Every structure is written in C-alpha cells, then in structure tokens.
C-alpha cells in the first residue's frame, strides 16, 4: 500500500471557487463535541511541526486541514484521503497553545466523512468482526485453542447481540454498510 495519490496538498493548490465555500461549516463544527474550539486556531503551526506523521508524509498537515475547514472548504476536507493518516498520537492536542484539541478536530472530520461513506476499508473489516464476535479482530480458532496449552484461561465471550442492541440508536450498522464514498479509498 502506498500513500494516497490524491492529497490535500493538491486539493489546496487548486484554485478556490467562491461557490464551493460553505461559510457555515465552521459554525457547524463549533457545535460538535471535539471541534468546539476550532475558531481559536490562529494557524501557528505547532500541530504540523510536531506531528510525527507529517514528518514522513508528503501530504498530511493538520494545520492545513483546520485552515481549509475555517475557510469553509467542507468537501475538500471531508473527501481528503490524508484525514485517515493521523495516528492519533495526541502530540498536537497536548502541545496546542490555543487548546484546540487538534486530534479531536481531525476525529470530527473523519466522523463527518464516514457519515458519507468515505473511510478506509480497514474500518469496515474491524466493524464486521465486532458485529460478529464482539472483538475488533477475528481471533483465529487456533489461537483460542492454543491458550489452554499456554496455561491461559479461556477468552471472555463477546456478546455481539448486545453490541448490536446498544449501537442501534447511533445507526452504526447503517454507517458501516454505506457504499464506499468517492475518496478515502485504499491504495
């Protein structure tokens, strides 16, 4: 797998048309848990300069994503493949001098993208395992059997039926089963 071909750097370099700006996007974000403080970001760049992923990626720049959101480039932000590169290490969150909770803002972008079906396949695989077994990975039978010979107690039982019941109200199954959106495809 290689890094996504379509990058926000390219997205950013395309001319901005007034018609694609959503001036209300930032206010929408202010009301969502995690991105309440997005307007406090004054683009100092601490997040990007301290981001370990940004150091090795040609395209992932948290500051740029926040700037694009402040400008109202909603579609470009939510369809950006690089949203999914954040490793959630929370360095940006701990170091932001404005207390913006940058990693939480990125998480809000991801959630909004996921609502439209734009998210990498790996999450669909984990979700299907969760709904089948309660575990995020399909634990191989061999591993389960091996536990006994390793002197380990049996694994606690997952209760996927109860998981489904508790997640009904947030429409998790619907979100996961949504057809793949335009971008955020795996390379």
């Amino acid at each position, binding site marked *: 797998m*290689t890094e996504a071909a379509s990058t926000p750097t390219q997205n950013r370099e395309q001319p901005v048309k007034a018609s694609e700006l959503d001036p209300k996007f930032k206010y929408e974000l202010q009301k969502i848990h995690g991105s309440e403080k997005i307007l406090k970001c004054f683009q100092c760049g601490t997040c990007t300069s301290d981001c370990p992923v940004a*150091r090795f990626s040609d395209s992932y720049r948290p500051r740029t994503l926040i700037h694009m959101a402040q400008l109202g480039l909603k579609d470009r932000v939510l369809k950006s493949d690089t949203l999914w590169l954040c*490793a959630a*290490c929370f360095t940006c969150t701990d170091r932001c001098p404005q207390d913006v909770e940058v990693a939480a803002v990125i998480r809000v972008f991801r959630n909004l993208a996921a609502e439209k079906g734009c998210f990498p396949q790996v999450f669909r695989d984990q979700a299907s395992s*969760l709904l089948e077994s309660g575990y995020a990975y399909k634990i191989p039978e061999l*591993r389960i059997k091996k536990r006994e010979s390793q002197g380990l107690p049996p694994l606690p039982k997952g209760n996927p039926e109860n998981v489904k019941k508790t997640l009904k109200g947030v429409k998790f199954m619907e979100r996961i089963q949504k057809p793949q959106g335009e971008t955020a495809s795996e390379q």
Partner: protein
Amino acid sequence: MSNKYLIFLGCAIPYRVSAYEISARKVLGKLGVELVEMPEFNCCGLPFNAVSYETMMILAAKNLALAEQLGLNILTLCPGCAGTLKKVNKILKADKAQREEINAHLKEAGLEFKGNIETKHLLQLLKEDVGVEKIKASVIKPLTNLKVAEHNGCHILRPKEYIGFDDPEDPQTLKMLIEATGATCLDYIDETECCGAPSVGVSDKVALALAKDKLSHIKQVEAQALITICPFCHIMYDTNELRIEKLFNETYGIPILHYPQLLGLAMGMCPEELAFSELRVNASNLLKQVNQGANKP
C-alpha cells in the same frame, strides 16, 4: 487498597501478542495481584472512534458497566484500551447529559453506567499499587549488565488530561520500572514519539518510516533491547523489524521485549515460562548476556 483486578485483555493481545499476556500474568501472580476474568467482553471502542465517536463511547461504557456489576476496578495491558476506558469513565462521571444519553443506549442491553470503578494500565498499577520497592525486592537475578531502551507509546501518555499519571514530555514510570530490574535504561532522541502502528493499513509507507526512525535512534545508543508495554507498538517493532531492515537496507537486530518479560527474567523465571519463543526478533544473544551476568561473582 484491594489487590484484585478485573483483567481486560482487549482484542490485539489475544489476536497475536500472547507473550505479553503470559508474562504479565506470571509476574503479577508473583507480586500478589489477583486477576479476575471479564465475564463478558467487547472491543474497548477505540478503533471505531474514527468512524463514530458515539460508538466508541457506547462500547467503552458497556465494558465499564459490566465491570461495575462485579464491583472491581479494571486492569488493562493495552494502553489503547486503558486510554479509552479512562477517558470515557472521566467524561461520563462528570457530564450528566452525556451519561444519560449513553445510558439510554446501554439500557437496550439491560446495562447502566454508574461511575463507581476505575481503570488502570499495568504500568500505573505497578507504580501505584505494587510500588517500585516491592518490585525491587522481588528481583533475585538483577540484570545489571543489560543496557536497554524504553518505548512508552502514545496512549499511555497522551492526552495528559485523561491519562495523567506521568509526564508526556519526559515520562519516568517505565524507566523507573526498568531500572528496578537492575538494567540500565538509556535515553535516546524522540523517545516519546509514535511507533506508527495506527497508520498501518492506511499508509504502510508512513508507518514503517516512523518505526524505522525510532529503531535507528535506539541503535545509535547501542541498546541491547527495546522494552514496550503496548501490544500495537510491540507488533510494529517486533513483527516488522525484519521487513524494515530489508526495506531500508539497515541492520538492527534489536530484540523487542514486553516489560513483564524483562521483569520476569530478573525475578528468576526462565525464558520458556515468559514465552520468549513467541518473539520474532531472536533474543538468544540477550539471554546469553543475562546468564553471564548472573554467573558473575
């Protein structure tokens, strides 16, 4: 303080990191920590935070509510699980509106979050409940001729607001616990940086570059092993070290040990008991060194 904990394994450890579980159970047994198995379990929620925050909240709260029924605090081996359970516990205890909202979902499965237990990661338990003095006293074979490096990983340190038992910029707990075994813990560049594991599957290129960067810094200070306390960090280094060596034309040969494996050796346990055979990077040179140290007068 009660020494009885509900052990929360998470998904990654039973999936492919059993050496961590085996060694942790052995070491905790010797230190007098009693472990009770979870009666029922589901993923802590962390992997689904990216897709749906509410899903993460509900999955975590469901586990907390199950633990509350038993009246036991949770012990996790995975910092991802610890971070998630701690965060959700703190939010729901403080915020009545969110608690009521989440409880409406839990009710569908006959559960309720009340907020009367705590979650600790192995590292925090060893520091706060067992204590470094007791750990030192349990060492019968000090690893005095070993020089190792530590990798805390992110979720045991950040965000500080929710984890808060160590300094994310200059963490000391793991170092202190390593030195309790008699080994020396070396400093190196960018010690608190991410291993790259969460980017696997989205961009392997970025993930492997991050891990390579850290391995290079660890090699620079001539560490004989890297000590981890996270199943994901361990997979990132141990499973991928050979791949990274080939990809970047480097040689590291650094064994990646789970902290309880290191402590177990110092407690006099044998490598077989501590599941050293499960490690991908060969640790036999390191074990020879340990034995030579023990034979010294």
